[in-house]
């Protein structure tokens, strides 16, 4: 019998390709190897369907299962935690010819991924506004504010949260003349929450949280007024979005 690592590599190639090669000769019931392959594709397809219910409702069961199968084969999991599997699905959808006529689909998937992550992201204690106020202004301006792990920013040329509601309710949606949407996804009181942001506040959060800019730079780049900044900070404080204040090493 071949060495275990060789068997497992050959088995793994079989699961991915359907051709079990040398493994078929080593097992008692070669035809049943397809049970393992089917389980690999079906169970991961079910995990994707649980993460992306609105995408599934939009394209229908048959189309979704084909897309999921193709995705699983192209992007199989690299780690065991299935709640963390499928991050690349939105980008994958943007490249699939069969759904090219549904230009809102990748954004719908981005929103669903952000909500899925928000539900299971690690818990973290937040830094409140009084703690920010206690920091010397020069140091605060130069600091980077760390986001809660559940926070995500999703923007779309389409009103993607309303579209998601409609699709999950089994209804259609008219996108004619619809406006773009900037969403803050977070977790509060045991539930995932969505909040609409205006473009300036959204740009601030993007600068701080996604680009990792110091507060002062992110604020300048977002071109917010003092009052606008105050209301964004009040909102971040209230939802516990900030979990740390990082200072660059003294130069």
């Amino acid at each position, binding site marked *: *019998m071949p*060495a*275990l*690592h060789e*068997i*497992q*590599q050959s*088995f*793994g190639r079989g*699961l*991915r390709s359907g051709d079990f090669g040398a493994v078929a*000769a*080593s*097992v*008692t*019931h*070669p*035809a*049943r*190897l397809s*049970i*393992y392959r089917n*389980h*690999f594709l079906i*169970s*991961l397809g079910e*995990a994707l369907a649980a993460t992306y219910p609105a995408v599934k409702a939009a394209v229908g069961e048959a189309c979704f299962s084909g897309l999921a199968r193709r995705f699983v084969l192209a992007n*199989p*999991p*690299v*780690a*065991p*935690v*299935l*709640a*963390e599997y499928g991050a690349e699905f939105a980008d994958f959808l943007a490249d699939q010819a069969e759904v090219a006529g549904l230009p809102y689909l990748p954004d719908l998937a981005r929103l669903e991924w952000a909500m899925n992550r*928000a*539900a*299971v*992201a*690690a*818990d*973290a204690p937040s830094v409140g506004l009084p703690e920010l106020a206690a920091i010397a202004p020069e140091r605060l301006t130069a600091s980077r504010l760390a986001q809660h*792990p*559940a926070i995500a920013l999703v923007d779309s040329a389409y009103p993607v949260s309303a579209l998601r509601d409609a699709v999950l309710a089994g209804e259609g949606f008219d996108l004619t003349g619809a406006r773009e949407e900037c969403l803050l996804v977070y*977790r509060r009181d*045991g*539930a995932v929450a969505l909040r609409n942001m205006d473009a300036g506040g959204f740009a601030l959060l993007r600068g701080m949280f996604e680009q990792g800019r110091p507060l002062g730079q992110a604020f300048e780049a977002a071109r917010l007024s003092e009052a606008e900044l105050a209301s964004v900070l009040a909102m971040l404080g209230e939802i516990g979005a900030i979990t740390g204040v990082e200072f660059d090493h003294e130069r």
Partner: protein
Amino acid sequence: MRAPLSTGVGLRTPHSAAFAARRPKVGFLEIHAENYLGGGPARAALEDLRRDYPLSIHAVGLSLGSAEGVDADHLARVSALVERLAPALISDHLSWSAVDGTYFNDLLPLPYTIEALRIVAENVARVQDRLRRRMLIENPSRYVGFRGAAMSETAFLAELVERTGCGILLDVNNLHVSAHNLGGDAEAAIADLSSAAVGEIHLAGHARVEADGETILIDDHGSAVDAAVWRLFESAAARFGHAPALIEWDSNLPSLDVLVAEAEKADRCRATVEARRHRARAA
């Protein structure tokens, strides 16, 4: 914490709210480690329930049979969870799930060879060293066997216990499913296992599927425990009277009442077995 003897159930999140509201009497709750490695509401609900129920952490993703070894990142996360929840029991399977950087989300079969025994023993020892706990290893449902295996599954498990000090999680449904699918004697396997090594017993439903002119049993955890598996459980309960039992139900999830009733049925079955043993001793 000692594991209780009355039968437990697998905690599935759709039942979390009903558990929290009604606190039904079951011996303990078992969770899949991989579903609780993050935070959020499901984790918070578990933290609440663990005040009222002993816990068992059943990992599904350590891939103890991997020739490439156990994934260090995943082990670190499972270890942190074990430290936080201080469960009565910890277990994973006699199978493998990952190779060449891909995780296949399945309990894939191992050839029961001397080489595989060495590899699984190294992996189990590594996990036990990290967790600083004895773990239980579960016999999986199998659909294929390997030609040229050096030993039976029970001999492999016995040798693994010998080498690592681990215990056995005996899944009697898996035993029945594998015996049917591959040809084998589940009763003989129960008789062969060392009584001291078995630390937990699993019960679950399976499906009968006709394919290619043969009947294959699929371990789908989607129904009540089958009559043949209850008969095996009687034998297991008679031999491993100290090991707590657990009902697993994952697909076609029933109401919590039905799940709890299945656990009560296991308790009644054990009581009957125990009474029979007392009578036999008295006679």
